[in-house]
């Protein structure tokens, strides 16, 4: 049997973690190819619809990573992200969503090594937990089925 290759999406902010992951590259530090990055201006932009969309489309794990507390490029975005997560985690747990599959971290633009660690540890953990087959069985998922409002 082929080994389970987890699909992991990383939502990262442009100023700290994206730049940190660039540094991982510049320093030629190797990490697992299972994680793919989607760039955001700030973790403050990342709402939970986004995380649900990833699970809904078959992600086995998610990484959300931004600047360290007090270092946000926009001064407060990462605090809003953190506060929101604290409230939301309970709701997710209540709905039966596996919050273990969501990894939060702080990786600064200077922490190339740390990014590789975060990726490798998350891949290892998700490999152990196994594929996320349950998500689409969970009733709440229907709640998130409608397309996000498009208002440009």
């Amino acid at each position, binding site marked *: 049997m082929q080994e389970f290759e987890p*699909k992991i*999406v990383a939502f990262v902010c*442009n*100023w*700290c973690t*994206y*730049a940190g*992951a*660039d540094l*991982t*590259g*510049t320093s*030629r*530090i*190797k*990490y697992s*190819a299972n994680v*793919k*990055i*989607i*760039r*955001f*201006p*700030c973790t*403050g*932009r*990342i*709402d939970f*619809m*986004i995380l649900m*969309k*990833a699970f809904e*489309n*078959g*992600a086995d794990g998610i990484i959300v990573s931004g600047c360290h507390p*007090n*270092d*946000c*490029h*926009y*001064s*407060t*975005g990462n605090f*809003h*992200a953190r506060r*929101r997560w604290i409230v939301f985690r309970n709701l997710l747990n209540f709905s039966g969503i596996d919050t273990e599959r969501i990894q939060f971290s702080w990786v*600064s*633009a*200077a922490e190339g090594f740390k990014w*590789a660690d975060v990726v490798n540890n998350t891949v290892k953990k998700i490999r152990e937990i196994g594929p996320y087959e349950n998500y689409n069985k969970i009733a709440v998922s229907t709640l998130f089925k409608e*397309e*996000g*409002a*498009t*208002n*440009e």
Partner: protein
Amino acid sequence: MSRIGVFVCHCGENISATVNCEKVAKITGELKGVEFSTDYKYMCSYPGQTLIKEAIKEHKLDGVVVAACSPRMHEPTFRKACAEAGLNPFLCEMSNIREHCSWVHPKDDLTTEKAQDLVRVMVEKVKKNKALNSIKVPVTKTALVIGGGIAGIQAALDIANCGHKVIMVERQPSIGGHMSQLSETFPTLDCSQCILTPRMVEVAQHPNITLHTYSEVESVDGFIGNFKVKIRKRSKSIDEHLCTGCGLCTTKCPQKKIPNEFERGLGFRPAIYVPFPQAVPNKPVIDREHCTYYIKGKCKICEIVCPTKAIRFDQEDEVIDVAVGAIVMATGFDVLKTDYFPEYGYGKYADVIDGLAFERLASASGPTQGEIRRPSDGKIPKKIVFVACAGSRDPAKGIEYCSKICCMYTAKHAMLYKHKVHDGIPYVFYMDIRAGGKNYEEFVRRTIVEDETQYIRGRVSTIYEKNGKLIVKGADTLMGAQPVEIEADMVVLATAGVANHGAEELAQTVHISYDPYKFFAEAHPKLKPVETNTAGIFLAGACQAPKDIPESVAAASGAAVKVAALFSNDELTRDPLVAVVNRSAPPVYSQCVGCFLCQSVCPYQAIEREEIKNRNGEVIKTLARVNEGLCQGCGTCVALCRTKAIDIHGYSNQQVYTEIMALLND
């Protein structure tokens, strides 16, 4: 139906060594909506850009995806190329298949597949992109320079001489920084005061420079070209317009025994004082912590003697608001504190001093008028041990880096000592001698050869006092780690240069990044050494890392040029990746329910209230509106809006969802 072009770069072999670029181009060329795809050795080169431009015209492309290095590197390059070919630049996106793929994964199929995935994501995203126009914002052509050491002084003068206004904020009563404390400077031994003080005076007299001493920056809002800064001017307890700087008050003040910070505690000062004779501005401040009047409620002798009635005991701090377009950080460095060296008895034995204290002893204007006399009994020391790397390059103690300036100033100290005390014997304990720089190595050689300084390679383990001598114990690693013991009369520690106190808080106040040692971080270690990651904020001098004077001055002039370039335009163009509140044409409909949650979280106060009126002029609803000149595009409001009335260009809900779907469904 889209007509997208995909351009896969080999980056020489940086990408193609692990990613099969031809295959990536071929497979992604088959995606729906992709009209043209190709790969090329160097996309960013002139022929590479020409290839893109020609393809845009030939295939009438309405979207471009360049799969290459990080967009943080070349997004502006490729967007500009698209614009030159007539395609709106915001219809161009990059897939990062170098930093995030080829450099971090081995050569195998998975790596090539990941590259394909990353390209597919951007192909789908670009389909949802909108043509956008850059936003123009005005530039306030005034610079703020924080810190008035040699770096701040140089930056301020350079900017002011370009014809722009400068506001300088210095937290001490005088500008000058560490350089004003130095005796003579390596490698030429010119007198520090002689080369520095004329520049300090120039700052004070320059018509374009406004100087705020005894002041600190309290808050910074806004963005490049348009910062709003609050400066707290601490009360000096004097009316600066009336004070003539005659100094009578300082001679009559009954408090005479306050350790003088400028003299590193080797001398005293009164409570009303000018830090040093050449201070700029040359007017006293009252140190309220030590002033008899503030402690006991009576004295006021200075007020009685002041011929111009300039003393103001009831003066309060003043907070002023200024608008600036650029900020230069020049807050310098500090040296490690005494409690860091218990094994050397620093802080315990009066004759174990640091390098700055030695500068004061060697300075003609210092507490001993330039004679080398030890603090404990005023005797001339016959043997001095200089300890280099005190704290530096010592991972066990938490500082791994080399402080860079100490090798040179230690050599200088040994030399100055020998010049002043001819029969004295200087010893230097060192790890390596780092003397890279023009005429630096020659300088150290002179110290060793002409001034007969004994250089001993090795660390000092302990220093203790015995019969009035300081016993310095160490090992000579060039003699097979043979133990060495020297009976010294005085010890000078070349303590590590560290980030200035308050650096971390200041970085957070102005919103710039800093490294693990709290030195301010540059945007790129090689190519952007004076820029920070925050547009419009620049670095000068030792606030970035330990630097000597020539390096600090060079960085300061570099920062000044960046500011001058920014100020060469009346307007600045900015990426239009800002938030928008949805609404239809009149009769106005919007999903916005006017809760203004967005307003409460926006860090830039970019959300305004717009009243919608009916034909009779009555307000029927209030909607949120984004001021696009102020919005910096963080997207916090978007994540928070419960009705999804607010969205953001470039990272819209639709774009983000599309990216997620494209990434996970191949």
